[in-house]
């Protein structure tokens, strides 16, 4: 199909393929998730799978890991045809998947979780001591000696939990290791460590499949890439033979002019003429936040940068009234306010919205309908005396769906039926329906496809133009550089540096994130 010969469309089953899928089709009701897909992965290779939401990546790995069974097609493993009755059958065959949504049991200890599939036993009973030892070994292997295996997973921060998840997968001695956005919650030093492990596993002859939306990560580790779109394997090629632009083009199937919308004239953004909408002074909480001073003006997008876990998340929660016994002052339009709960944060005159970290638990009520989720934060605005005004409710829901271009079947479907990107759009839309003046976002593009990311960037800029003050925490430096007028880099609970305009460079962000003193570039 392509002249360079290194690529062949829908890669044919090579004899060396460790696991191969032929003619796989999977439908959910009327929706075809995968159609006649051919795909294979080889031993000793890292294979990246890219694609937009709903492109079929998740279905592909669900089929490979035995979570769903395909309607048509064959799966071969080591030259033998296989069918899996469930994830445990796939595990037994050596296929282990690290899912994007954490598969840890928060009330069980780290050691229990890591060894859950096959704990060491003595006389048929779980040998806790051997289990702890084994868990310690596995944690040490991925450089997490700081995690005590006796701790409950509940008590660990998200990035540590993800590392526990990886240790848990390694405990199963996989021959095919599938990572579904496994690095999205990790700090950059952990990402490097995980890549090192992946390379080592590859050299040991394991077949690794990685789903990621981070292009530079794919460039860093992948040997092969497959791009999926609309349930088809568009192209499989050797990593490096396609440029990032070409890959993005394959994924979204349309031309994109720029990754980020243009920023307003930087003089306007930095002149400081307008008084700040949000002014935080000497804000502190426990030993996580110390002496935070931050101001955000109307129409400005201020980024929070730094390594994960430096207090960015807590700062947003604190501003939203979720943290108790904070100190310092918060002024909105020059007036000091006391925000003790999200109810206070929503109150007129404060008008803060928070798009939270975890959309599945903090952002959405998954079993409730799309329309219920959209209207849930603004119900009081649609109350007609005592009853909810159904007409007002429906029209504002329709308006939100239109504005955010949320792809929905029926607004009374459960929000859990939507793809990840569309779910995140629902979370953002539900807050926009409250007409916020200050919008706080906690990593809103985590685990979201490129197309939706772009839409979110555009939306943020548009909201800023309309006069909102936006605080954006992102673990993705590119995003901070591309979106923000200013970036406050946090380290150990403090803002160590504020970058504005042309100062916002990867080099500056990273050096401040590591708290390295360096002259501004």
């Amino acid at each position, binding site marked *: 199909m392509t002249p360079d010969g290194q690529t062949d469309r829908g890669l044919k089953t090579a004899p060396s393929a460790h696991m191969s899928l032929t003619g796989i089709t999977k439908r959910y009701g009327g929706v075809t998730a995968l159609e006649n897909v051919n795909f294979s992965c080889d031993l000793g290779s890292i294979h990246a799978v890219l694609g937009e939401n709903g492109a079929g990546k998740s279905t592909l790995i669900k089929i490979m890991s035995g*979570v769903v069974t395909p309607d048509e097609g064959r799966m071969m493993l080591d030259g033998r045809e296989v069918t899996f009755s469930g994830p445990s059958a*796939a595990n037994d065959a050596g296929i282990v*998947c690290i899912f994007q949504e954490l598969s840890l049991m928060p009330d069980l200890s780290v050691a229990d979780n890591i060894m859950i599939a096959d704990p060491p036993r003595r006389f048929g009973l779980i040998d806790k001591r051997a289990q702890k030892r084994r868990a310690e070994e596995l944690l040490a292997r991925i450089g997490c000696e700081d995690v005590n295996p006796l701790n409950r997973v509940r008590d660990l921060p998200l990035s540590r939990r993800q590392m526990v998840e990886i240790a848990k997968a390694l405990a199963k001695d996989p021959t095919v290791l599938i990572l579904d956005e496994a690095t999205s919650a990790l700090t950059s030093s952990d990402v490097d460590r995980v890549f090192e492990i992946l390379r080592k596993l590859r050299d040991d002859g394991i077949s690794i499949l990685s789903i990621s939306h981070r292009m530079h990560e794919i460039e860093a580790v992948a040997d092969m890439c497959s791009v999926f779109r609309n349930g088809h394997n568009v192209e499989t090629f050797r990593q490096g033979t396609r440029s990032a632009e070409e890959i993005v083009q394959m994924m979204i199937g349309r031309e994109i002019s720029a990754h980020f919308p243009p920023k307003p004239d930087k003089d306007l953004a930095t002149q400081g003429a307008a008084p700040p909408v949000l002014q935080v002074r000497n804000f502190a909480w426990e030993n996580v936040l110390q002496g935070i001073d931050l101001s955000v003006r109307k129409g400005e997008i201020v980024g929070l940068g730094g390594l994960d876990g430096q207090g960015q998340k807590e700062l947003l929660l604190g501003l939203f009234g*979720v943290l*108790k016994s904070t100190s310092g002052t918060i002024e909105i339009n020059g007036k000091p306010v006391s925000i003790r709960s999200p109810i206070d944060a929503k109150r007129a005159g404060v008008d803060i919205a928070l798009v939270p970290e975890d959309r599945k638990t903090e952002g959405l009520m998954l079993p409730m309908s799309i329309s219920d989720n959209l209207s849930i934060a603004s119900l009081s605005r649609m109350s007609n005396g005592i009853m909810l005004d159904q007409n007002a409710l429906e029209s504002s829901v329709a308006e939100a769906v239109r504005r955010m271009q949320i792809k929905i079947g029926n607004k009374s479907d459960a929000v859990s039926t939507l793809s990840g990107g569309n779910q995140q759009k629902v979370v953002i839309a539900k807050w926009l329906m409250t007409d916020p003046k200050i919008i706080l976002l906690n990593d809103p593009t985590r685990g979201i496809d490129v197309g939706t990311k772009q839409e979110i960037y555009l939306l943020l800029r548009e909201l800023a133009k309309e006069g909102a003050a936006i605080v954006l925490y992102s673990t993705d430096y590119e995003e901070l550089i591309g979106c923000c007028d200013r970036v406050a880099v946090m380290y150990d609970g403090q803002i160590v540096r504020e970058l504005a305009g042309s100062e916002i460079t990867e080099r500056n962000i990273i050096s401040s994130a590591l708290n390295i003193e360096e002259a501004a570039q």
Partner: protein
Amino acid sequence: MSHTRKSDLSIILRQSAPLITVIAIFLLFYIFYNSNHPRGFSTAVYIQNANEVFALVMVAMAQTVPVLMGGLDLSVGAVMTLVNTLASHLLNGSPLEIVFGFIVCLLTGALCGFVNGCVVVYGRIQPIIATLATGAIFMGLALFLRPTPGGDVDGDLAWVMTNDLYEIAATYGFFDNGEAAWFQPVAWLPVPALLLVVVALFVWMPFSRSVTGRTVYAIGSGESAAYMSGLPIDRAKIAAFTLGGFFAGVGGIYLTLQTSSGNADIPQAGAYTLNSIAAVVIGGTSLLGGVGTAIGSIFGALVLRTISFNFRIFDIDPLLQPLFEGVVLLGAVSIGALSVLRIKNTLELFR
């Protein structure tokens, strides 16, 4: 190295805080009771108390297993009653017949639990509703077996099982009729207390350390995560209910020995079920599942019963007892909730 050990210990202590609390509450109440009892700290008192608590302790253990999965079993009292009525027919005759009767009764309890498990797993019905229905069925069977209270239980058996070890030896002629010198240090131990230790050590402990037991905790902590980890969910659920039925059955057998009769008493079954839930909660098991142990529930049941012991020795209107039990339940649960005050991130309250 010493640093790691120390932190291990502090983690274990922190995680066992609810259990330590309930044990402390029990000891406080029980020592208070014995100090004020005219014959306090005597074998006779221990035996009497042990007899009175055993059935509830078993039912509380039975309740713990489904609660750990995040479900409630409303049939535990009914299973206990059904086994009680059955045992009132079977626990007599030759030793062989009695052994046969024990086995049938234990199997019946387990079978009831197994049925619950199958209804929950294959009928995809929430445990609370499934067991509400099956509980009514078990109660109906019990009424069929014992339309009116009564029964025929081997007298020697009932006597020795509800006494101290000495009586077993004396009745059946072991250890010089119980007079052997080496036997004396343990001769005063009440049989039900030993039975409890046996059940806890040889049934609960192995279960909690088996893969099936681990899976039960995993289901309560996050069922989809447990499924995605390739754990045997269905098997664990059925096993959990079966084990619950087994515990309830043991409770039913003991109730028969204690009362020498069978009685399909509907209010009594209901009271046992509700008390079992209270005991589980006092014992530090989360109703959301995932956290807790049956050992905690044992002490939860002991705390509940010790309250009524105290009522007996003080001249308080017995009508006040339910009120006081409610206050203690609320208090015990509030102690567990005290940790909430330490949470500075209110988002964690909702996890």
